[in-house]
């Protein structure tokens, strides 16, 4: 039972979060356009209504009250259109809604973490009330008219929903409230834009009323109502229903037909009085509606579009997908074990055509299975990207800078766990771009010959094996000299050493490093880029920062598509086999003894592409007995990570292989094995174990190189 409650709560949180996101998007586009279209207003009204309803269901009183007040506000706006909001108050309205979204989000987070809800909504409600009062004041005339129309149509229609369907249920069918609720639910499937009267049909206290007087559905278009009629006709317990269009709005739209319509009403009422009348279909009205042409066609289109958005989705617990991935990983290994079984080697000369054919088929299927199971975990990055719009907007307003966010490739799909992991880093980077990148003064930008409005480009790209996410800004860029000076002051850099551009950029990602002199709301604590690096490396990604002083900077995140299965290069050292992630390998090459250059501390280096790179002999590092003692016998693998680049000397390359990463037994972690450059292990096709090297830890933890 508790479990059940949890799943309802989960559903609520999911639904509310997605609604808030939707709201956020509407508001952001609306703010750019500086107005709310009638569609937007309707949408917001609907969202508020749902938020209110679900909050009431979960008994989150403050949330319900708040959503209710905003709903009231938008009811007024919908009645009077955006014109009732004075031009100078529009930003206030937008800010109010953004505040509302933030407050709601905060509360939802509280619920998620099990913290109690704060009941402090009074100030909020007061603000909303003043806005409502103001609207009522300015739009007094409009209000009067709409109120009068509301009162006149009290029984027959609701403002904005002129097409009414009055439904009566079979006498004595029992549980009228629930049956009415079923009708409402079914109608919801074909059209979402309608109002029910009484509002809470499923309230058991209303069962009597519904049994006696029936209940009403108010639609905004006749097409919606037609669809609803089709559904209701099929319901056994609906005794009769009548269609009424007598609202003033409909009258305005249909001025010439008005008489006909009002006339039409009477026979309908009469028909209703009969004991078992046939379902009444208001045919003449329908025909005239259809003849009205284009606007309705447009409506219909919108309705079908609304349908398309409703995809057939199911939500699955992530842990189940993890299990599936684990099993698929095992299958991939087992398949390799079977097809490369050592027993087959004894059968040389024997025809294995059928076996090979089946093996190929099996490989094809396992590959497919692996692809599908991986794609299950893929979600587009658009959600994460869209959130950044909000950050750019908020920070732009607070800092008084103008910047726009351009998003490229937001439909790129990446693993769910990675999406979660990159959300914070992207936020930090975008914040940095806003705070440090974009110039504080437009004049500075104009003087530099740039567009006065700054631009931040957020792009995602899938290269097949990894996802590249870039955050570019056209701001001031990084002053490398200032960074180096600061690094020296903080004791992170050696004042006598020469640093490359790239090494200097790496200082920016050190914990506690910040070039800001004071701590602000947004940055200056020096944790941002450190967090970025930590989070990205946790999903075995790489962070790169480049910048041109005065022109802007670019932060690139390279993340492998999935973390559970990766491409690795098997290398042998003595009797041991190690796996080097392919993504870290730049090149492998042979070299002779003469290519090696020694430094004062007997450290070895090698020159590649006009740069010197340290050499690390894996057997020395791990105290193994190598088969290739001489430089000429072994092979160099040039590896690279976000922070270092060096050459690894191994005995031989065994070949590339797709491997499933398995964590090392926790017992071994007590010996700090992770710090010594081994990140995990994998089972090879023959059942042996290969250790996966962590290229960045391998060299930085080596005492010989720690001096650098």
């Amino acid at each position: 039972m508790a479990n059940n409650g949890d799943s309802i709560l989960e559903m609520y949180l999911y639904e509310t979060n997605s609604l808030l996101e939707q709201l956020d998007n509407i508001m952001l586009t609306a703010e750019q356009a500086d107005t709310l279209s009638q569609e937007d207003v309707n949408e917001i009204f609907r969202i508020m209504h749902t938020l209110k309803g679900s909050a009431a269901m979960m008994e989150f009183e403050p949330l319900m009250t708040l959503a209710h007040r905003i709903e009231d506000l938008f009811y007024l706006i919908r009645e009077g259109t955006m014109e009732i909001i004075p031009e100078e108050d529009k930003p206030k309205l937008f800010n109010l809604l953004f505040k509302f979204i933030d407050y709601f989000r905060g509360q939802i987070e509280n619920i998620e973490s099990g913290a109690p809800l704060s009941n402090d909504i009074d100030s909020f409600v007061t603000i909303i009330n003043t806005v409502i009062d103001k609207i009522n004041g300015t739009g007094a005339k409009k209000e009067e008219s709409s109120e009068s129309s509301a009162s006149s149509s009290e029984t027959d229609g609701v403002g904005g929903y002129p097409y009414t369907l009055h439904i009566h249920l079979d006498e004595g069918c029992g549980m009228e409230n629930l049956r009415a609720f079923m009708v409402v639910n079914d109608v919801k499937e074909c059209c979402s834009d309608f109002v029910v009267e009484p509002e809470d049909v499923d309230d058991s206290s209303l069962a009597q009323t519904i049994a006696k007087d029936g209940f009403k559905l108010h639609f905004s278009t006749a097409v919606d109502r037609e669809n609803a009629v089709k559904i209701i006709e099929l319901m056994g317990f609906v005794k009769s229903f009548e269609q009424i269009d007598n609202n003033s709005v409909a009258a305005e739209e249909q001025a010439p037909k008005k008489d006909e319509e009002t006339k039409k009403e009477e026979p309908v009422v009469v028909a209703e009085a009969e004991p078992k009348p046939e379902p009444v279909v208001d045919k003449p009205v329908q025909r005239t509606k259809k003849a009205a042409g284009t606007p309705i066609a447009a409506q219909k289109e919108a309705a079908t579009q609304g349908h398309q958005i409703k995809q057939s989705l199911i939500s699955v617990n992530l842990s189940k997908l993890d299990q599936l991935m684990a099993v698929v990983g095992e299958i991939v290994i087992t398949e390799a074990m079977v097809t490369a079984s050592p027993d087959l080697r004894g059968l040389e000369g024997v025809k294995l055509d059928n076996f090979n054919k089946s093996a190929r088929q099996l490989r094809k299927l396992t590959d497919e299975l692996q692809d599908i199971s991986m794609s299950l975990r893929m979600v587009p990055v658009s959600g994460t990207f869209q959130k950044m719009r909000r950050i750019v907007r908020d920070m732009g307003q607070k800092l008084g800078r103008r910047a726009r966010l351009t998003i490229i490739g937001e439909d790129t799909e990446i693993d769910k766990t990675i999406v979660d992991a990159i959300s914070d880093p992207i936020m930090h980077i975008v914040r940095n771009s806003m705070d440090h990148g974009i110039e504080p003064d437009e004049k500075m930008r104009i003087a530099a010959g740039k567009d006065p409005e700054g631009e931040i480009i957020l792009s995602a790209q899938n290269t097949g094996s990894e996802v590249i996410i870039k955050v570019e800004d056209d701001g001031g860029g990084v002053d490398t000299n200032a960074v180096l000076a600061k690094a020296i002051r903080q004791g992170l850099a050696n004042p006598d050493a020469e640093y490359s551009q790239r090494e200097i950029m790496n200082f920016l990602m050190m914990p506690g490093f910040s070039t800001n002199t004071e701590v602000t709301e947004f940055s200056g604590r020096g944790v941002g880029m450190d967090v970025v690096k930590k989070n990205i490396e946790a999903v075995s990604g790489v962070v790169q920062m480049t910048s041109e002083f005065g022109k802007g900077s670019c932060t690139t995140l390279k993340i492998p598509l999935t973390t559970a299965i990766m491409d690795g290069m098997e290398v042998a050292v003595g009797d041991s086999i190690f796996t080097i992630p392919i993504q870290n390998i730049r090149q492998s090459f042979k070299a002779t003894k003469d290519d090696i250059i020694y430094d004062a501390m007997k450290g070895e280096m090698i020159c590649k592409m006009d740069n010197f790179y340290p050499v690390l002999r894996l057997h020395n590092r791990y105290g193994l007995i190598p088969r290739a003692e001489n430089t000429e016998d072994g092979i160099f693998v040039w590896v690279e990570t976000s922070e270092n680049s060096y050459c690894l000397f191994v005995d031989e390359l065994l070949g590339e292989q797709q491997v499933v990463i398995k964590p090392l037994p926790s017992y071994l972690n007590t010996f700090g094995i992770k710090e010594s450059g081994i990140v995990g292990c994998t089972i090879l096709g023959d059942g042996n174990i290969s250790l996966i090297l962590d290229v960045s830890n391998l060299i930085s933890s080596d005492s010989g190189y720690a001096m650098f």
Partner: protein
Amino acid sequence: MSDENMLFATEEQQANNKEQEVEEVATRKYLTFRTDNLLFGIEAEIVMEIITNYVVTCVPMVPSYVKGIINLRGQIIPLLDMRQRLNIEPIDTDCIIVINVNDVRIGILVDAVSQIIDIPVDTILPVPQHNAQKYVSGMCNMPDESGTMLVLDCSLLLAD
């Protein structure tokens, strides 16, 4: 049957049950194995299985008593060499006892496994303080007089 009788019967049964329970607690199953002429016993409950002939993958940068890791049907299990853990010269052996201590699976490399034996709990005596072995929590004479068994405390074995 009257209520009183039933009550009586139940009481008697309860008494019987208690006696049985006491008897059950009184003995404990131990798996005994030899390492360098020492006879050790591990509680049979924590023993998962006994395996031989496994390929051990060496792991660098760990103490010498950690022989490496093995692939036990897809599970990666670390392997401890009992001899080296006791600072005894290692010999070539491939008999591994896989144990599960507090959900940590680990293999122990021993010279040879002997038998599973029921030991009355009260015959297990504390180790004399002067001779206290690092990983031994008690000792007892074997019922068949074949020697003295040292009770291995596995959580101490895994601790640093």
